[in-house]
């Protein structure tokens, strides 16, 4: 898969962020972000591509910082976030979110690049029983630049 904005490293970072926030399995619905990363990451890439250069560079840089520092700060581990198993990622983000520090705000920022891309997928909408009130217009021509 080739992306307009995301590098291979960014892909791994956003995949890890996604699976820490929306892990697979559990009681509520089976699907997790990692299962569908090939589908939602291009949508994250699209959102980034429509930001100005500095914002998207900032977002990617933030991902890189988190990858290195958050495991150290919240798990006391000298491992990059992208190498952590899913259950540890969940613990990591839970601790970051409830820290009451800047990290809580950063989680919110990162969710912008994960939740709308993920929850707009057909299979995810089905698994949470979400359906738009009306189908898309029959004459839908596709999105436009």
């Amino acid at each position, binding site marked *: 898969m080739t992306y307009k904005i995301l590098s291979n490293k960014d892909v791994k970072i956003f995949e890890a962020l996604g699976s820490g926030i929306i892990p697979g399995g*559990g009681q509520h619905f089976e699907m997790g972000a990692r299962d569908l990363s090939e589908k939602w990451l291009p949508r994250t890439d699209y959102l980034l591509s429509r930001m*100005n250069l500095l914002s998207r560079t900032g977002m990617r840089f933030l991902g890189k910082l988190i990858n290195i520092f958050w495991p150290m700060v919240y798990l006391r581990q000298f491992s990059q976030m992208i190498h952590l198993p899913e259950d540890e990622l969940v613990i990591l983000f839970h601790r970051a979110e409830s820290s009451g520090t800047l990290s809580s705000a950063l989680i919110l920022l990162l969710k912008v690049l994960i*939740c709308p891309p993920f*929850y707009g997928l057909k299979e995810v909408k089905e698994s*949470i029983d979400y359906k738009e009130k009306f189908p898309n217009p029959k004459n839908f021509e596709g999105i436009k630049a």
Partner: protein
Amino acid sequence: MIREFKDIKRDINEHADVLVIGSGAGGAVAAKELAEKGIDVILIEEGSYFTSKNYNQDPNDMMGMMWRDSGTTLALGLPPVSITLGKAIGGTTLINSATCFRTPETVIEKWRKSYGCEGLDYKELLPYFEKVENEISVTELSEDVLGAVYQVVKRGAKALGLSAKPLRHNVKNCEGAGICQFGCPRGAKQSTDVSYIPKAIQAGARIFANCRATKLLTESGRIRGVKGKVIDPSNGKAKHNIHITSKIVCLAMGAMITPAFLLKQRLANTSGQVGKNLTIHPCGRVVAEMEEEVNGHHGVSQGGQIDAFAGEGIMLEGIFLPPGLMTMSLPGVGEDHKYIAKHYKNLAAFGVMVSDTTRGRVFRPLLPGFPFSSWYSLNKTDTGKLKKGIEITAEIFFEAGAKRVFTGCTKMPILNSKEDLEIFKTMPVRAWHFELAAFHPLGTCRFGNDPGESVVDMNLESHDIKGLFIPDGSPFPTSLGVNPQVTIMAFATRTSDYIAESIERY
């Protein structure tokens, strides 16, 4: 016809009597009103032209497509505030919630008495409100279209002796698809791209999309026109040059960009007020998990209001969002997050909008690629109002039977019971404990009769540059306490009347 990037093959060199920059609530209205009076008008808009054929009800695609910078525009401060803006033919009206209010009479009075706006008369504005409401089809919707969240809130409010009322919307045949901020798939919302722009074209206005103004041309204190660039929307790169001369320019880029544009060029600022006095109506959002299925997405996203606290500067208004955005804004990761997503149908949400006394500021763009920089840090009074609004809304939801309530306050993000709410009420909080969003920037080129204190006069013409008008959200010297599109449109209509009457003098 709207000329878009694909239709523009060479540099644009044109002349018009009036050049309008921006096609949102202010610009589109000015273009249509002036063109219908037989004036030769050109309108340029930086964003693209979309129709309901491009709307797929997917917030991810729609934010990328027509929200400026995918919705990441913000004001820095403690806390930073997201201030989303539209970038398209239709401007921010394309992504707004279609709620319509006239300017409150008390606000006009305040401007007249305390903000140097002597001569401004509410009665004189009434025909303009009526005209605008006709043009954009302001209607009262039926209860089923107003949606089930409205019913939940009505129930809770009643138990507390409060009354929830329906909001009025600018829609035609709205069926409550509930996705107004992401392009109305039914073509029901009467944003300016479907209401004013077609009429402007019919009256002979020439409309150019994907055209960014970069420089105002002035000569001896008079406006002469504008220079700009034709932008390739696929990569944001400038392709051709624009040079348009005109006797009059209507700058309607919105209250965040208009002042930054003027500051960058050191124009129209002998008062020193350009960019100052920014008000935004800071908003908090309260979400409740109900026992019952609410299906909040089946109905307009902003159905009802509670105005009982408007006198204190607190308006409660509906707001419901699709799952990606709703889950994004609620706390929780892992199983907690998945629980919320799975119970999306049980969620109800309502917004708290503060009529702010805080004043922020817009600066010239400090970083490349950003059209503005800005600072807004919520003051103590407004923080108190926000907290009170959240408490009232939480109480309403508990009365309506909520299992738990999400406050949007990091100090106590989840209230599991009324007892928790009592604890929340006594809790000291600071502004930065709130997740803030704002949708109504105003005030950054305020109007007034005194050139030493205001940027434009009561006709919205610059005190400094003859022929430069600012008919967008920038001139209003305080927040309105209500959603601003009708106010902006009414004043743009009034200014158009003035321009049409006096154009021979330019």
